[in-house]
């Protein structure tokens, strides 16, 4: 399918089309965050044999809205002894870091806010931004729990970015591009063309099939650690660090942290679905394939991965900080490296 930005075509490449391209993902993000919060509440309730929220609206579907309104009303507390500038800046830096990733996420063949040829690299670069915000928030809070949480978070996110980046590198080698639209277009024609199953190509891809499966698993684990979700929610481990780096935050600033977490969840789910699950392409060849269907496929694939993240959160205990480092450096990284080497060899041979 031909890829283009629909607003550039309709309005020409001007300021207005750029503005719409930026605002649209933000609107999507707000709606998605509300749905994901409701999903988190309801899925956790189903897993735990509860009902979840039932009073706000039918079956409690207005609960996330009520929570947002509550958070806006809350008093904005800056603790005594906090570094005001850094303290106030941190939540917005974190959110900016995760929202910037949306710039290169192709929602459908006809819409990507910025089609740049180093999309995957860009997502990783701006994703690392969040660490700065977390360290800033943790340091500026003037709280020992926050500081411990921030230190843990910095080491964790940096360690897990490396296996994650190796996975993406392997995929880039396989696709021969870093452009998200091109990677997605390559996987058109059915689910057997997904990079999860070795990508497009003849029967010879059977050689790399186990490795691409392994790579997607590695990315899934690494992305959980990057978004600070259970079983890797060590920076905000409730039973140890109260709430980690955002212990001292309240009101809208806390909401920004929360928003950034959900935004990050979607970003990693989107990368996983674009790189391994074919993004906006239909899993059944030309059946249900088109520009509008593209949005449906992409969002439902990403949301399925978000669902898995929520599912895992309410099932697994938390790992310890040294076990997390062990897993990252001694298990995921070597496996990712092996897969990378084998996929590179495959590319050279075929």
């Amino acid at each position, binding site marked *: 399918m031909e890829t283009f930005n629909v607003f550039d075509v309709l309005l020409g490449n001007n300021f207005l089309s750029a503005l719409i391209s930026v605002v649209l993902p933000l609107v999507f993000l707000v709606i998605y965050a509300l749905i994901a919060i409701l999903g988190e509440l309801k899925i*956790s309730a189903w897993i735990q044999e509860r009902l979840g929220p039932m009073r706000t609206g039918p079956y409690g579907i207005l609960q996330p809205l009520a929570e947002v309104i509550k958070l806006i009303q809350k008093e904005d507390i800056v603790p005594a002894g906090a570094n005001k500038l850094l303290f106030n800046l941190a939540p917005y830096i974190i959110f900016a870091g995760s929202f910037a990733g949306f710039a290169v996420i192709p929602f459908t063949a006809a819409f990507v806010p910025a089609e740049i040829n180093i999309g995957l690299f860009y997502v990783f670069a701006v994703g690392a931004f969040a660490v700065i915000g977390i360290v800033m928030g943790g340091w500026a809070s003037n709280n020992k729990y926050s500081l411990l949480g921030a230190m843990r978070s910095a080491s964790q996110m940096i360690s897990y970015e490396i296996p994650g980046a190796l996975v993406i590198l392997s995929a880039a080698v396989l696709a021969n591009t870093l452009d998200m639209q091109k990677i997605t277009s390559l996987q058109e024609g059915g689910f057997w063309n997904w990079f999860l199953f070795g990508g497009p190509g003849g029967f010879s891809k059977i050689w790399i099939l186990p490795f691409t499966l392994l790579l997607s698993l590695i990315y899934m684990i690494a992305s959980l650690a990057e978004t600070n979700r259970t079983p890797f929610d060590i920076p905000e481990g409730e039973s140890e660090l109260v709430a980690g780096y955002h212990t001292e935050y309240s009101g809208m600033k806390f909401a920004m942290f929360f928003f950034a977490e959900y935004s990050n969840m979607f970003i990693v789910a989107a990368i996983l679905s674009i790189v391994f699950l074919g993004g906006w392409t239909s899993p059944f060849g030309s059946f249900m394939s088109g520009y509008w269907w593209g949005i449906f496929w992409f969002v439902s694939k990403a949301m399925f991965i978000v669902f898995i993240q929520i599912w895992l959160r309410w099932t*697994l205990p938390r790992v*310890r900080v040294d076990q997390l480092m062990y897993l990252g450096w001694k298990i995921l990284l070597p496996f990712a490296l092996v897969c990378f080497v084998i996929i590179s060899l495959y590319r050279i041979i075929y």
Partner: protein
Amino acid sequence: MTTRKILDIDFSRIDTDRMRLNVGPQHPSTHGVLRLEVELDGEVVTNVIPHIGYLHRCFEKIAENMNYQQVIPYVDRMDYISSMNNELPYVIAVEKLLGLKVPEKVEYIRVIMAELNRIANHQIAIATFGLDAGAFTPFLYLFRDREYILWIFEKATGGRLLFNYFWVGGLANDVYPTFKEDVLNIVKQVRKTNKDIEELLIYNKIFIDRTANIGVLPADVAINYGCSGPMLRGSGVPFDLRKAEPYSIYDRFDFEIPVGKGEVGTVGDCWDRNIVRMREIEQSCRIIEQAIAQMPDTGDVQSAIPKKVRPPKGEVYFRCENPKGELGFYIISDGKDKPYRVKGRAPSFVNLSVLPEISRGYLFADLIVILGSIDIVLGEIDR
């Protein structure tokens, strides 16, 4: 999993401070109002000092100004999640002072209630232990089951947490007609949930990694510190007062003493202490089933209650196997209707004293898990 190597670095050259962290009294996982003064070297715990007294309610002094029967509600409030088990040693101690014999039916109901409460207590212990390790869902499964047990208590005694049900010489009232069926249904439900919990939590790889080889309490240290209950049995010492010196009618039942064997790690680690509680639930179920089968249907539960409790001069110490360990009451009577002195020997207090010993050198996250595995209740520690 990993062994920590001692690096050959001269740390005295590097000017670093250890961090002093106050954990509690308002911290999500101090199990009440306990304050831990923790000294951290990075993430490694170098020292822990527990500070207690935030829940002190002068139980022992109040008891001196109350009738013997009036003390029972205060006893309830010591270990408020296993109140039935608290009442048992106190009423038996007073009955001993009086030289009283209670009817058969009372003994059976007391045992059934105490064992039901033991199950409820262990369910909370395992649930909060899981919570400390970061697992939220098993917590709610166990609390759901505990709710069913509390319903039985509510039907039988009117209270969910604090019962005032065991009286000197008898019970506050007889059990309700469908009591036996309700209890047997609960036993079935508890066993079913225990299977789920084993799959979901106990044998989960992450959970084993978090709890095995952590907070190892060797048997000799446990005995030296006077630990009791699952703490002691987790270290492999098969000591249970229900077997060692059977009180009430415990000698009539067939049950085993589960001990920690170091199945996934070292004997006496956190996992062992937890599995002991898990298996004690099963043993309690067995005791309840046998007691329900043997329990006489007829009998007046209040026939032996004395009009006035005025024991002769003397003193008595009586101890029972509380879910948390050995709970003893030392009562001195000077012949009046109020006790001259009541001293409670609280298992949680003794068990907590071993915390600094077993948590040095572990990570901060481990400290929380170790504290969870001790299963303390602050109402009992501060009294």
